[in-house]
């Protein structure tokens, strides 16, 4: 028996759910890496976390009417991003209060929807799926939407790259050069909303920020250049998602038997380990320098 037999449990490569999970996970890791680097640089992790949490409302409402969670996440996250732009979250970082209040109201609504979901029985187990994700349960029919939205968000960042970078370094300097700083920021927030919604279908609304922020933060420790940070974050994200899917699949054979461990746990744990490892590399590099 080969080593491959132990690493890849039987049926891994033939399982359609695994194929879908790998495809979706890869697209999401790419968009999370590209968008996440700017999220960390702009100090908007809290906005990302809020968008992720608010997505719960959309996911639970979608489950209530029998629609897929992705549509709910995208609709609510884009609306929430527009609302955040209107109350000026980006311009005044002290506007935590407005975000906090909207967030509280949205989560309250989500609690109500999730309650209806569980009592009406139509969305069996939807609470756990929405909050913590369930990448093996994604239908292959969702792949075109996932890939399309991911491509849209990545394209937005690529097109806006230089104006966005200068506006991130200094809004004043960007404005002095005639860059429409507010428009660029609003478009960025839209890309962040898409990335958050995509991360939510992979590892759930609550954990979505982990995939967005973790790989980006790790990559930013290792390089002095934003483009390399994006590539690094994408690579770390893909690595964590692939390995997470593999471990979750293999875990069917771990105790307790016939109950796989959640993919989200593995992905988030691997992202966290990646972050710790990057800190170690940075520490050693700076000590050596």
């Amino acid at each position, binding site marked *: 028996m080969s080593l491959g037999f132990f690493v890849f449990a039987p049926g891994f490569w033939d399982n359609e759910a695994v194929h879908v999970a790998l495809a979706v996970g890869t697209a999401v890791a790419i968009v999370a890496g590209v968008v996440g*680097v700017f999220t960390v*640089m702009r*100090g908007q992790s809290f906005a990302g976390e809020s968008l992720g949490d608010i997505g719960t409302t959309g996911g639970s409402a979608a489950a209530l009417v029998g629609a897929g969670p992705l549509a709910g996440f995208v609709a609510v996250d884009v609306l929430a991003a527009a609302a955040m732009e209107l109350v000026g979250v980006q311009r005044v970082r002290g506007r935590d209060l407005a975000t906090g209040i909207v967030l509280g109201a949205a989560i309250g609504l989500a609690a109500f929807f999730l309650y209806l979901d569980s009592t009406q029985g139509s969305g069996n187990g939807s609470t756990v799926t929405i909050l913590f994700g369930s990448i093996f349960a994604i239908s292959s029919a969702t792949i075109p939407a996932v890939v399309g939205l991911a491509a849209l968000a990545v394209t937005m960042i*690529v*097109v*806006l*790259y*230089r*104006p966005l*970078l*200068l506006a991130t*370094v*200094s809004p*004043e*300097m*960007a*404005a*002095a*050069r*005639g*860059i429409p700083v507010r428009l660029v920021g609003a478009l960025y927030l839209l890309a962040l909303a898409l990335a958050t919604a995509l991360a939510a279908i992979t590892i759930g609304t609550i954990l979505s920020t982990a995939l967005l922020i973790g790989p980006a933060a790790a990559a*930013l*420790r290792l*390089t*002095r*250049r*934003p*483009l*390399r*940070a994006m590539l690094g974050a994408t690579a770390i994200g893909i690595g964590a998602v692939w390995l997470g899917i593999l471990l979750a699949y293999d875990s069917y054979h771990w105790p307790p038997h016939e109950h796989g461990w959640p993919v989200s746990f593995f992905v988030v744990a691997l992202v966290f380990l990646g972050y710790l490892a990057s800190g170690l590399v940075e520490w050693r590099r700076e000590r050596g320098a």
Partner: protein
Amino acid sequence: MNEAVLSVEGLGVRIAGRQVLDGIDFAIAPGQFTGLIGSNGAGKTTLFRAILGLQPATDGRILVDGRPRTRRTDSIGYVPQKFLLDPDLPLRGRDLVGLGLDARKLGFAVNRRRKRELVEEMLAAVGAEAFADTRVGRLSGGEQQRILIAHALISGPRLLLADEPLANLDLRSAQEVVALLARVCRERGVAVLISAHEINALLPVMDRIVYLAHGRAAGGTSEEVIRPDVLSRLYGHHVDVIDVHGRVLIVAGAGDDEDLHGCEETVEHALPGEVAP
């Protein structure tokens, strides 16, 4: 004198009902070094924002190269007021300088030879080659100023605006930045408008001075402006100009202890009787 690179004509700016700038008139000729002097709150940053087109004028107009300014001009380079760059920002000094050339363009930057050469030239012009590959946020205040000046210069402006570039710098770094700006002005023929609340560091290099107080301005050479009668009229109360071994101290004669320039501490301690409520 050639056509002015900048002329400010009867500029008035009102923000939230408060007249921040009132009847500001001055012009800057090509290659001239002008100091914009005034205490905090005198309206220096508002004037800069108006010149940059970020603050609409309530009255008067601003001409750049003889034409009303547009948002997208490369005629003006801008060095913002000292701000703290995030030390973890993944951006080298040379990347920030390069952004001065093409930040408005969409898409990723193609690493063109012409751009690389221009960035190298600017880094050399400000003496920043040695630290061009360090993350900008980890550079000292003086080093960051050099990178920011190179960023502003790379697009070939005819006027460089520097907002309080000497604030928070130690004396030696401040002198180096002043010398650098003066050299840029002479060698490249770029007019410089630099704001400061302290006049003495700039006295040796200034061609002209625009003195701002209570939203109004007096302009001319330093001999024409730094006089008790001119400054008293500007402040609206009596002001003395004292020369201490070549350093100028501007002292409120009566009433106001906020409008002291030069070595404020010394003045307060030396002349306690003069600082009445």
